[in-house]
């Protein structure tokens, strides 16, 4: 291949000429001038003025130029005849090249006015400075660009070197471009995908401008009237015909082919089975479009009209019992008589006694299904299909089931790229490529009521309202998901960073000692928020072992308060309520009557502290269920839908081995040694299975509090009390002796610090209440209590 550009070649000349006359303004001006010259020339000739011929010459010149433009110049990039640079290069770039041996930078200059340049700049946030600053400006550097363009042309099977190919080829010639692209969180291969994406947009644009035929004016003259159906149903085919071009993707086209094959092959009723969000409705739209446009299809489906029946609106139309059935019978009869109708029952379960109005139209549909006409399409979830198959096997046997599987990542991104133009038009926003990836990633993690690609599309739709300037980037997607699901995804703010860095100090305001426990939790949160931790697992999983009243639950509460907002962010599950095998079902049922079950709460509030209290009391089957949650951060509900725990801190507490801890502490054993021994003991005694213990990030032993620490607990309780008294401007203080007295009274080797609050309540609060009522203490006073106050109280 000659790497120099032959600027004298015919294609270059044509490209330059077309670049001058091809713009809309020049084209309009030429047309207007040609028409004026034609009319003017004829008028002049009518009045015997020979100048008319000269004027007509102008009209003929315009006619010839316009004809050449339509016949050849417009298609310069579609018909490639040679293999030289001037034969392959996009005609818009070719027209602007000034040198036969340009530099890579010169090619960029010639490319930068193309639509593709704006496409890459806006979709990938690929700023033009990357090209302007990093491209080689020496003549001869184009050779590398042409070589890269050749490789890309071969890879993407394009006709020539389109502007999209040239842009990617230019990038590939920049040394260390991958490093530069990291700043915009993208890789070169992502940008390469833009070639395919642009080709798809180009194809769609051409398709949208193409004249389409839907059978013509007399298409439906041989088919019957359908007044009721037209009134109550929504004619998808009409929407497509008059509302414009509809999208179709690789994913849908496979299913559409199956539907065509089934229906053309004689199947009367087709059932699309797939989870919500997989694209069942979209596939039916694509099917409707296909049978409306493809004149080569068999006559039994060609140009047929697809009408959607929507259960809620039909129920709303039916005023009295039995009217709905009458309406459906009427519509089926009309469709049967009309002979060109295909009825689409979206969310079909609603028609089979499982939805709006609790109607069961199975019996109404049976005669039509027996008669073999009209053609019907149903859409339902696998569970609904199972229900129908179980309840009415006679009915389900008449349906031909077609599975619609959730899209994988590649298919989802493909659908998103296809749908995005429509979405952008609706939302008046512009989505970047990075936003797609983020939407897919986050939808997979947080949207559990929809399958792909519906889940990712929902995230993209929701994010549009979070964007201030209409540009939806990956950061906007994160912000939108954060506000919708209450999780933390964006980079930590300065305020949050402060909390994270001083987490231990904050937690110690609520929990006395237990330094190791506080430290492991603080570290887990820091790992998670800095992106170091594994995002596919829970933020942290901990087993707290220790006697009652040493601060295990308090620490969980404190964590919820300090980092997760407030104590309500803690989801507490008393595992002693899950002691029998039957309790498994209760654990995985998201809704328990009117109340949210455990999984329902996590689904609602994924960013939370989950406290599994007294885990040793749970039944073995329940514990087995928890293993996957601890390992992969996922638990499946009774509908087999996953619930993510990847944003939660899971803390399991247990009193197991409490006596052992006390004994070891009394023997003066080191806490680290104690922990190791205790883990071995609880495994040996069969309290916990090794597989459960191994799934926790850390097993932390809480040691009993000593007297000094209990005094600190008293301080915390008094601090809390003073907060309550703030409203009355009263403050209570205890002498050191009084604190010790309370500790002596409240200390219980078995219950730890737990009785302490009760003792404070009994002595301090009661004395205080009396003083306030007797008005011996009033607003602004400071009440200092000593042992004698308590003893007096005791005597009373």
């Amino acid at each position, binding site marked *: 291949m000659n790497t120099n550009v032959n600027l*004298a070649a*015919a294609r270059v*000349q*044509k490209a330059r*000429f077309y670049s001058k006359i091809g713009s809309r303004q020049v084209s309009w001006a030429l047309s207007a001038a040609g028409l004026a010259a034609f009319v003017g020339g004829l008028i002049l000739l009518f009045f*015997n003025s*020979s*100048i*008319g*011929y*000269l004027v*007509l*010459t102008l009209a*003929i*010149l315009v*006619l*010839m130029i316009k*004809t*050449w433009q339509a*016949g*050849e110049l417009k298609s310069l990039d579609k018909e490639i005849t040679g293999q030289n640079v001037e034969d392959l290069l996009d005609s818009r770039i070719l027209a602007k090249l000034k040198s036969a041996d340009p530099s890579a930078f010169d090619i960029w200059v010639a490319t930068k006015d193309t639509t593709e340049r704006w496409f890459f700049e806006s979709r990938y946030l690929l700023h033009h400075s990357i090209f302007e600053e990093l491209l080689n400006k020496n003549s001869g550097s184009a050779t590398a660009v042409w070589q890269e363009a050749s490789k890309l042309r071969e890879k993407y099977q394009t006709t020539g070197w389109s502007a999209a190919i040239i842009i990617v080829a230019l990038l590939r010639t920049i040394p260390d471009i991958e490093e530069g692209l990291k700043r915009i969180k993208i890789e070169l291969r992502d940008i390469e995908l833009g070639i395919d994406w642009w080709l798809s947009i180009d194809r769609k644009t051409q398709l949208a401008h193409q*004249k389409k*035929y839907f*059978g*013509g*004016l*007399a*298409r*439906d*003259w*041989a*088919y*019957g*009237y359908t007044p009721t159906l037209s009134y109550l149903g929504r004619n998808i085919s009409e929407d497509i015909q008059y509302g414009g071009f509809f999208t179709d993707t690789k994913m849908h086209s496979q299913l559409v082919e199956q539907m065509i094959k089934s229906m053309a092959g004689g199947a009367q009723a087709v059932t699309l089975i797939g989870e919500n969000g997989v694209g069942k409705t979209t596939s039916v739209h694509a099917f409707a479009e296909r049978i409306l446009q493809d004149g080569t299809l068999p006559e039994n489906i060609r140009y047929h009209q697809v009408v959607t029946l929507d259960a809620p609106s039909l129920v709303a139309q039916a005023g009295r019992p039995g009217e709905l059935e009458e309406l459906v019978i009427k519509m089926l009869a009309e469709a049967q*008589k*009309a*002979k060109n109708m295909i009825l689409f029952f979206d969310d079909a379960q609603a028609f089979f006694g499982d939805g709006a109005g609790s109607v069961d139209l199975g019996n109404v549909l049976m005669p039509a299904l027996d008669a073999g006409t009209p053609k019907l399409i149903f859409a339902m979830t696998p569970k609904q299909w199972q229900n129908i198959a179980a309840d009415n096997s006679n009915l389900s046997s008449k349906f031909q089931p077609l599975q619609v599987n959730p899209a994988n990542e590649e298919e989802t991104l493909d659908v998103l790229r296809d749908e995005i133009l429509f979405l952008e038009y609706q939302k008046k926003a512009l989505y970047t490529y990075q936003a797609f990836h983020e939407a897919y990633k986050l939808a997979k993690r947080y949207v559990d009521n929809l399958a792909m690609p519906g889940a990712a599309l929902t995230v993209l739709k929701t994010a549009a309202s979070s964007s201030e300037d209409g540009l939806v980037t990956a950061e906007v997607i994160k912000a939108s998901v954060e506000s919708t699901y209450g999780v933390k995804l964006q980079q930590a703010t300065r305020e949050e960073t402060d909390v994270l860095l001083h987490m231990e100090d904050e937690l110690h305001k609520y929990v006395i000692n237990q330094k190791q426990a506080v430290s492991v939790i603080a570290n887990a949160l820091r790992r998670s928020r800095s992106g170091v931790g594994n995002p596919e697992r829970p933020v942290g999983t901990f087993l707290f072992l220790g006697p009652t009243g040493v601060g295990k639950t308090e620490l969980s509460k404190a964590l919820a308060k300090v980092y997760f907002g407030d104590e309500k962010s803690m989801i507490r599950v008393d595992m002693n309520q899950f002691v029998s095998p039957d309790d498994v079902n209760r654990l995985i049922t998201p809704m328990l009557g009117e109340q949210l079950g455990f999984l329902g709460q996590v689904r609602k509030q994924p960013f939370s502290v989950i406290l599994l209290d007294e885990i040793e009391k749970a039944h073995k089957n329940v514990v087995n269920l928890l293993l996957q949650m601890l390992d992969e951060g996922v638990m499946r509900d009774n509908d087999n839908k996953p619930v993510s725990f990847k944003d939660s801190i899971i803390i399991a507490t247990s009193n197991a081995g409490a006596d052992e801890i006390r004994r070891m502490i009394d023997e003066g054993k080191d806490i680290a040694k104690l922990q190791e021994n205790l883990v071995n003991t609880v495994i040996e005694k069969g309290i916990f299975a090794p597989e459960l213990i191994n799934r926790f990030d850390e097993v932390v032993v809480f040691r009993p509090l000593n007297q000094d620490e209990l005094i600190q607990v008293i301080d915390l309780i008094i601090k809390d009390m003073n907060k309550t008294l703030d409203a009355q401007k009263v403050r209570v203080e205890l002498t050191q002796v009084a604190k010790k007295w309370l500790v002596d009274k409240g200390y219980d080797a078995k219950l730890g610090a737990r009785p302490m609050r009760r003792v404070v309540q009994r002595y301090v609060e009661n004395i205080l209440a009396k003083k306030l009522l007797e008005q011996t203490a009033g607003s602004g006073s400071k009440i200092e209590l000593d042992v004698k106050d308590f003893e007096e109280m005791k005597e009373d």
Partner: protein
Amino acid sequence: MLLSSFLSWWYLSGWGWLAKDIKNRLRAINETFSVSILLRTLFSPWKQIRTPASFHNFFQAAIDNLVSRFIGAIVRIGMLLSALVCLIFVAGIGLVFMIFWPVIPLMLIIFPILSITGTELW
């Protein structure tokens, strides 16, 4: 260079392009007026309006259905005639263009001469 490119297109592939363009326009008329559907369903009942026949109303049903088919045929024939007019019009103009195609570039020379000499072409 540009002129020779233009002339080689005009007298080689341009002519073929014109023929294809005319063919596409004729096809568009055919599609717009549903010519093939009209021919296939020429005697079908109008909008499926039919009286179901039984032993008691055999003759009545036969007459009703005949009327429906007759009305259908009349409307369809009317539509086919309209399509035919359009087809003839477009084909005629296309034919004129096809015939005069080689002459059109020459007019750029002939017309200025006529203008200068003051000769009348007709």
